[in-house]
């Protein structure tokens, strides 16, 4: 699995971004997105497009963790959301690894739409890489809670104003650590 995690301020400013890969099952923690050449901006694009759904779900579900809320099949991207009470959004994009059977024949971004819908279905059959399984939901929840703790600590700092970018390298290590631990 490859992950892209972002924190958005209540006014939709991205205040923290990180991309990482799984560390479970012998993973080395390096993100390997399916379309590495476009991943950098596509991930942001996909994550931000899920905001509409977050804002809809926000008023029907009172929980902080909104679970898996959006899927973008062409990139097999699954998005889970966590809302802090003060309105910051934690969004996690996860992309299960491409199965070896799922055509490694150089998927250009042009043929992006056609062939990857089938790989989504194929990968969802294997539990380990199934992004909507209860185990995955639970792992993401734990990850979110751990990040939330660090976020609260950041926001309690008198030098931090809401909506400011989080630049602390310690915060980054904490998020990486949480990712290693749970995802």
């Amino acid at each position, binding site marked *: 699995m490859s992950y892209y995690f972002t924190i958005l301020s209540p006014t939709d400013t991205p205040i923290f971004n990180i991309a990482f890969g799984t560390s479970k099952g012998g993973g080395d923690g390096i993100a390997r997105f399916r379309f590495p050449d476009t991943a950098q901006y596509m991930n942001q694009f996909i994550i931000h497009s899920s905001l509409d759904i977050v804002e809809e779900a926000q008023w029907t579900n*009172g929980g*902080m963790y909104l679970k898996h809320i959006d899927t973008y099949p062409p990139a097999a991207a699954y998005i889970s959301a966590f809302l802090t*009470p003060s*309105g910051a959004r934690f969004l996690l994009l996860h992309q299960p690894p491409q199965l070896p059977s799922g055509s490694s024949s150089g998927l250009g971004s042009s043929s992006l739409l056609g062939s990857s819908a089938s790989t989504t279905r194929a990968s969802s059959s294997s539990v380990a890489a199934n992004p909507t399984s209860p185990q995955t939901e639970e792992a993401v929840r734990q990850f979110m809670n751990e990040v*939330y703790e660090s976020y609260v*600590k*950041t926001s*309690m700092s008198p030098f931090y104003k809401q909506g400011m970018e989080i630049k*602390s390298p310690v915060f980054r290590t904490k998020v990486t650590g949480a990712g290693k631990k749970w995802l």
Partner: protein
Amino acid sequence: MAAPPRHSSMMSTSNAGTLQSSTTDRQQAPQQLPTPQPTQGLRVPSNRKTIYDRHLNRSRNAESSRASFAYLFGEMVTYAQRRVTGIQDLEKRLNEQGYPLGLRLLDLLFYRSTSTSSSALSSSSTSSSPPNRPLRIITLLHLIHGPLWRLLFQRSADALEHSVSPDTPNEYMITDNDPLVNTYISVPREMNMLNCAAFVAGIIEGVCDGCGFEAKVSAHNQPTEMWPSRTVFLVRFGDSVMEREKVLERNGVK
């Protein structure tokens, strides 16, 4: 304890003397410190503990001294009073000082109630399940009236009312009979409209805004025989909030 005698000796010396001694202290300090690790210019405290290493629940039951709070708050009022045009302006500044505090307290409040299952936010929720974000006005006001007030002042607020007037259904009132912030504030006669609890009103406003309930909050004096410093916090929600409230009610969201 070595501090008090040293302090008294410093008191006896002249002002310049204390200044010198403090500077020499500072010069000595780096020599005692272990060499900091080379992390891209990041400066870590000498005990290597950043704010991320400290537990948020450690100060959970710790109270700060009332005297120091009164002193600090007095200074805040004095600070806000500089170059103000009138009472309203002063109250606005106090409100602005409280606002960011409200946003922070909100996150802290939820963090503390999720991490410890014993004292859940609302009395009805079962233990261990995390508390919900308030979606309706009433839940939000209960959050302010109960948990927030307890976090700040160690007790609940005294009353929570809805405006009876049909013209102003968006107005709610939270009453505190004896606000802590006003205990040591004596307002001059010519400024008797001033209520320094505008600071607390700012905190409430921050909490409402943080939860997505756009609101204006103001503090008003309403003394009674028994409670001379009784304060009413008037919470006025915006139109968008009232509109959403209607939709949520129709959908049966609690």
